[in-house]
Every structure is written in structure tokens, then in C-alpha cells.
């Protein structure tokens, strides 16, 4: 196993790097998009609520692989040429943002509506009440479920392997087919994923304790 690792070190590290990059990008953008969609879903205006709901229901109920393939094969045909890494990361972002939207929306809804009413009754706008009162409390509440989403996101980034995204899983497949040492290859790939996901889990647990 050590031999396999040292001989293919460059491939593993390249894959690890692309996986981390894809995860970080998708995490950042899915958090932003997910939060915005969550806010759409709680706006007083019914039209915006419906838009938010449609977004969530579509992207959370289609397999990640299908969304990714769509960006990899369909978008380049009609819109703009994108490579596998970009297509995979966009697919990952959109898919995850639907779950994050649901998580954040649940958090917003669990903040007692009375606080929103109190803020509005003092003349604050909906956005001021959201910004100063509701969202800070909502985010605190959703840290544990968000942590789960982040870990899922990292694991789901293995979808890049299907669209030539050069990530860990892609490199693992390549190494396994060259060396025929499938057992050790995928064990190492698994360990590399743990290097990313375990710190996220622990950091989230730490945040949860610290903010509680």
C-alpha cells in the first residue's frame, strides 16, 4: 500500500487538490445560493416563495449525476464550452444549494415569529429584521445540519470522476486500472476523503459547542 501510494503520489495529490478546490468552490457558492433561495422561500411575496420552492424541489429531486451530465454535455452544445471540472463543480453547487436552502429555511422558521413581529413593529424593514435578528439565530441553529451538508458535498464531489474532473475518484479509477491493485487504491482514496471530511465534522462540532 505504501508502495502504491509513493509510486502514484503525484496522481493522488493532484486528485486531492482538485477535490479540495471543487469542494471549496461548491461549498462557498452553494452556501450563498442556498441562503438566498431560503430567504426567497420565506419572503412575504408569494411569487418569490413559489420561485424558491420550485428551485428546491427540482434540484433536490434530480440525481446529482444527471444535473452534472446536463452541464457537461448539454450546456456546451448550446451555451458555452465548459470543462469537466467546471461542469462537475456547477452541478455540485446547484444540487447542494437546494439542500442548504431547505436547511436554512427550517432554521429561519424555527426562530420565533414574535421576534420578527417585534422588529417590524419598531419600524425595521423585513431585511433589517432578517439581518439583525432572524438570520444570526437561524444560522446558529442550522450549524449541525449544515455540517452534514458540507460533508455530503465533499463526498458527492466524486461525481467529477464521471465527467473527467481529475478529482480523487477520477485519479483512483485511473490508478486502479493501471495497477490492478483495486483494494489498496480505493482504500487510499477513502483515506484522502477522510482527511477532508473529518476536520469538517470536528470543526462543526466545535462551532456548535462554542456558539451554544
Amino acid at each position, binding site marked *: 500500500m505504501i508502495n502504491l501510494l509513493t509510486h502514484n503520489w503525484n496522481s493522488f495529490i493532484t486528485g486531492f487538490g482538485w477535490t479540495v478546490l471543487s469542494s471549496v468552490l461548491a461549498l462557498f457558492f452553494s452556501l450563498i445560493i442556498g441562503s438566498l433561495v431560503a430567504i426567497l422561500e420565506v419572503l412575504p411575496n408569494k411569487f418569490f416563495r413559489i420561485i424558491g420552492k420550485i428551485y428546491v424541489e427540482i434540484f433536490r429531486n434530480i440525481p446529482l449525476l444527471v444535473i452534472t451530465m446536463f452541464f457537461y454535455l448539454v450546456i456546451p452544445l448550446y451555451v458555452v464550452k465548459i470543462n469537466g471540472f467546471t461542469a462537475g463543480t456547477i452541478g455540485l453547487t446547484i444540487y447542494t444549494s437546494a439542500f442548504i436552502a431547505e436547511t436554512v429555511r427550517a432554521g429561519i422558521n424555527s426562530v*420565533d415569529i414574535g421576534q420578527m413581529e417585534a422588529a417590524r*413593529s419598531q419600524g425595521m424593514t423585513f431585511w433589517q429584521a432578517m439581518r439583525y435578528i432572524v438570520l444570526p439565530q437561524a444560522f446558529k441553529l442550522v450549524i449541525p445540519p449544515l455540517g452534514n451538508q458540507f460533508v455530503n458535498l465533499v463526498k458527492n464531489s466524486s461525481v467529477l470522476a464521471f465527467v473527467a474532473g481529475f478529482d480523487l475518484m477520477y485519479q483512483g479509477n485511473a490508478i486502479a486500472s493501471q495497477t490492478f491493485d483495486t483494494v489498496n487504491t480505493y482504500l487510499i482514496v477513502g483515506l484522502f476523503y477522510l482527511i477532508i471530511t473529518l476536520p469538517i465534522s470536528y470543526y462543526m462540532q466545535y462551532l456548535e459547542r462554542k456558539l451554544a
Partner: protein
Amino acid sequence: MSMIEFRDVQKYYGNFHALKDINLKIDKGETVVLVGPSGSGKSTLARTVNGLETIQEGQLIVNGRDISDKKTDINRIRKDVGMVFQHFNLYANKDVLENVMLAPRTVLKLSEEENKKTAMALLDQVGLADKAHNMPSQISGGQKQRVAIARSLAMKPRCMLFDEPTSALDPEMIDDVLGVIKYVTSQSDMTSLIVTHEMGFAQEVANRVIFMDNGQILEDDPTDIFFKQPTNDRAKQFLSKIIQH
């Protein structure tokens, strides 16, 4: 001059007719207490005054502005109308002082220095200056309600709405809160609308008492007359049950 004026106001929740033909004028400086059984529409009526509940028909004029007109800036009206809720509704992520300072900072754009001075003075008035840096979860119900009152007063409102301010409190805490409300309503230029079940308190502070049932105003009298010789049968029945306590 009137501070609050309802003209033929109707309020519906779907098919449920929550407020029926409400006509009511409350003058500047008046303290009006609203009583009636649960579900009679008292809270709903109070909540229409600052637009937390919308009305479907009629006109509602608050401080010279027509709240039923869609063009009216509701936040402009709310600046002048404070509200105290049954369940306090303090901002759970802010300490006591910040609860009082937040709206004056974000809505009135008060300077930090002036804001803090006013806030501390108000907390002192309600007897909670020493709790300024406690979180809402660390203080008692009665203290929370006094903070909520200070928070409303920090906006320098012309009118205060109290929606069952003591209903969620331990009996021992009620007097402190009523004391503060009494002080607030005694300010000569403050208009107050109070929804309460505390009849003794109503007798003490109110200029007028209004009795509601089934979404209608059934009795609207000066305080003495309301308690001594109400004319409406439903009001008499209600009073006879309440007074026994």
C-alpha cells in the same frame, strides 16, 4: 384630535369575520382598555393599528396617516406606535441593552452616544439598569416585559399598544409590570390601547373601557360607567364572572 380612528373596519381570516363594523376613535393622550373573552378579536384589533394585521374593508387612520391606503409607508407609522406583546418577543441574540438600542440605531439613525444614554435611562426607569448586559434568557418574565416596554419607549412613540402584557407572567411579577405601564400611560401626551384581563388595573388607568365579543364592539364607556352600569347584556355577564375573582 384623534390618534387612532377606525371607520367601518372589517377584517377577515379567509371566511372568518374577525372584526365586524369597527368604528372607534381614540384621542391623543387617552388610555383605552380593551376587554372581552378569548377569541373576541381584542388582540386582532390592537394588531391592526400598527399593520401587523391587515384590514380588508374600511379605513384606519393612525396619527393622521391612512394605514388602509397601500401607498402609506407602514414603517413610518410604526416608528410612532410602540407595541408590547404577551410573550415579550425580546431579540434572543442581543443583550438587554442592545434590545433597547437596536431599533433607534437602525430606524431612527440615532448616534451611538445618544442612543446609549437614552437606553440606559429607560432601563433605569424600569428598574433594570443592572441587567443591561444580561441576555434575555438570563432574566425573569417580568423583567423581560419591562425590557420590552423600555425597548418600545426608546423609539419615542406617540402611541403604545399593549397586547395582554401580563397574561404570560407569574402572579408575583405582574405588579412590577403594571406599575411600569401605569407610569407610561400617565404621561400626558401618550395615547395607549391596552388589551388586558386585569380588571383592577383597568379601573385604575383607563379613561375608557371597550368591551368586545365576536369581533364586535359591544360597549364603549368611560371607565366608571363601564364598571358600574354597563348597558350591554353580554358585557354585564362578562363582568359578573370576572369581578368574582
